[in-house]
């Protein structure tokens, strides 16, 4: 079964002259870790927002584990870590987890149990009672991931999960993601870091200017960066 099936999705922001996504299709097979690559303005974040139900005015179809979006049961099976650190910084890690756990409809007992588990997975157990504002960038990224993992999703969507973090935190996040994928979690990783994509993912989808321009196994690509530049061109993308 496919964890995610995106079929001919077209979307444009109001007032924008061009489509952010144009006839975009993508499939992520269950159990796979797949990279979503593309230069700035390729439509990666827009795609993530559509898949996670934040944007609804699009044409085309999105299926999550066979359920057509928008669907509440499909939404529950997704874990999403946005590119921005989307946490309440004056709350502690545990308070953030309690809050997002309740939003995910976990019971009080489940929140306690899962909070311990994800804090352990992301190496934050010793800092659980500290306000997030006191965390380093790497710790905040790890907690951003922990929140996405809290309700045990089957499909994890990550938007630039290692931006601005030190090598230690990055390594920790890689280890965590590999462990989760090994345990059966499907992961779609949107990233600019070629090394990260090549190291973690078994397949890759390349997007540019709202269109899918490549979709295939990572094993067929020797040098991902060279491949990326060949496909998307060397001109600057400042949009």
């Amino acid at each position, binding site marked *: 079964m496919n964890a995610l099936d995106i079929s001919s999705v077209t979307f444009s922001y109001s007032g924008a002259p061009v489509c952010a996504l144009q006839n975009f299709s993508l499939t992520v097979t269950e159990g796979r870790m797949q990279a979503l690559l593309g230069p700035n303005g390729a439509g990666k974040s827009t795609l993530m927002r559509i898949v*996670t*139900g934040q944007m609804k005015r699009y044409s085309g179809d999105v299926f999550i584990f066979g359920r057509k979006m928008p669907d509440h049961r499909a939404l529950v099976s997704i874990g999403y870590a946005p590119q*921005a650190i989307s946490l309440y910084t004056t709350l502690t890690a545990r308070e953030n987890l309690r809050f*997002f756990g309740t939003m995910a409809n976990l019971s009080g007992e489940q929140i306690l149990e899962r909070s311990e588990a994800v804090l352990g997975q992301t190496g934050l157990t010793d800092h659980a009672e500290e306000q997030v504002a006191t965390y380093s960038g790497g710790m905040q990224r790890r907690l951003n991931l922990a929140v996405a993992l809290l309700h045990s999703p089957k499909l994890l969507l990550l938007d630039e999960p290692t931006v601005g973090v030190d090598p230690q935190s990055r390594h920790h996040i890689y280890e965590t993601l590999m462990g989760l994928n090994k345990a059966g979690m499907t992961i779609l990783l949107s990233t600019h870091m070629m090394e990260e994509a090549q190291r973690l993912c078994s397949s890759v989808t390349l997007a540019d200017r709202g269109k899918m321009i490549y979709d295939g196994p990572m094993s067929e690509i020797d040098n991902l960066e060279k491949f990326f530049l060949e496909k998307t061109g060397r001109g600057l993308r400042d949009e």
Partner: protein
Amino acid sequence: MILRQLRELIRKEILILLRDRQTILLLFLMPVALIFFMTLALKGVYTDKIYERQIQLVIENESKLPKANLLEQKIESHKLISRVDRPKGMDNDRIFAENKAQALVRIPRGFDEGEKPVEINFDPVLDFGYKIAIRSLMTSLTVEVVMDIDNLEVIVANMLVEKTKPNREIPSPLQQTVPAYAIFAMFFIAIPMSIGFLKEKNDGTLQRLFTYTVSTNLLTLGKIIPYYLINVFQFVLMLLVGFYLMPRIIGFSFQLGDHALYLIPVTLVVAAATTGFGVLVAALARTPEQSSTLAATGAILMGVLGGIMVPYFVMPVLMKKLALISPMYWAHQAYLDIFLRDAALVAILPKLIVLTLFAGICFYVAGRRVQWI
């Protein structure tokens, strides 16, 4: 399930707010400080001008005849008057310029014979109310002496009786400042409310919430309820400060009136209006800077127009008409109805209707303009 989510949304907002020292200062300490200082500043407006303060008066009796002496004695012994001697070598202008006296009374030669009148000279900057009071006093005392009447007030008392409610002739300035600055601070809730909303939008936490099964209605309630509760708490706290703390510190009394229970419906409606204003600012502003400017300017303007900073009864006619457009005016008058006028609920009701309409318009416009993502 939904109630659990709502409770958690409220808990989250309150925790964030309680950990923000600037917001606590703005919502709770600012009104206490304003009540304290503005009560002292308004003392002159609210106190009994005639009996609370004495006028420094130079009396010059040039006649020295019996009637002139009697008048001099009557003026000197009046409680409104504090007699001062003319400083040596000082003319009238200098006496006033150096604030040695506020008025001069000269009883000339020929007064007893009815040839010359008593002369009064006022400090040009003296409050008009004092001038009228002194002129009226001098007239009464002169009539008493000339007409050989023992006490004119007793005679007048048989013709004119005052029926003002006991102890309500002059409200304490606290009666004005406690509801005024409680309302003022309640409107400032718009600042943390809108900044919190925009911050969540900008840092992506709001977008993240939409990836869960949480409706916009629930998120809206989760934003409105905590700030509404805080508004009610603000008023209760200011009332306690006005009732228990301020009288001990600055000595003014504070009365709740005969219908203190009416404070409940009035406060609930006022809190709806203030929360509505907050929601409107949050929906209209695009950046936190915009929202704080919009909220603060809006609240200050409403305060100036609504009789918060300058008491309504001292405003000129035009300003009194303009006051009607400020929701703070309606809120303040509703509280003054309870504290000072012992008004029936039916008299307060029109004010509550205006405030409810204001809240409704704010919520409606905000609902049409809000952009969640």
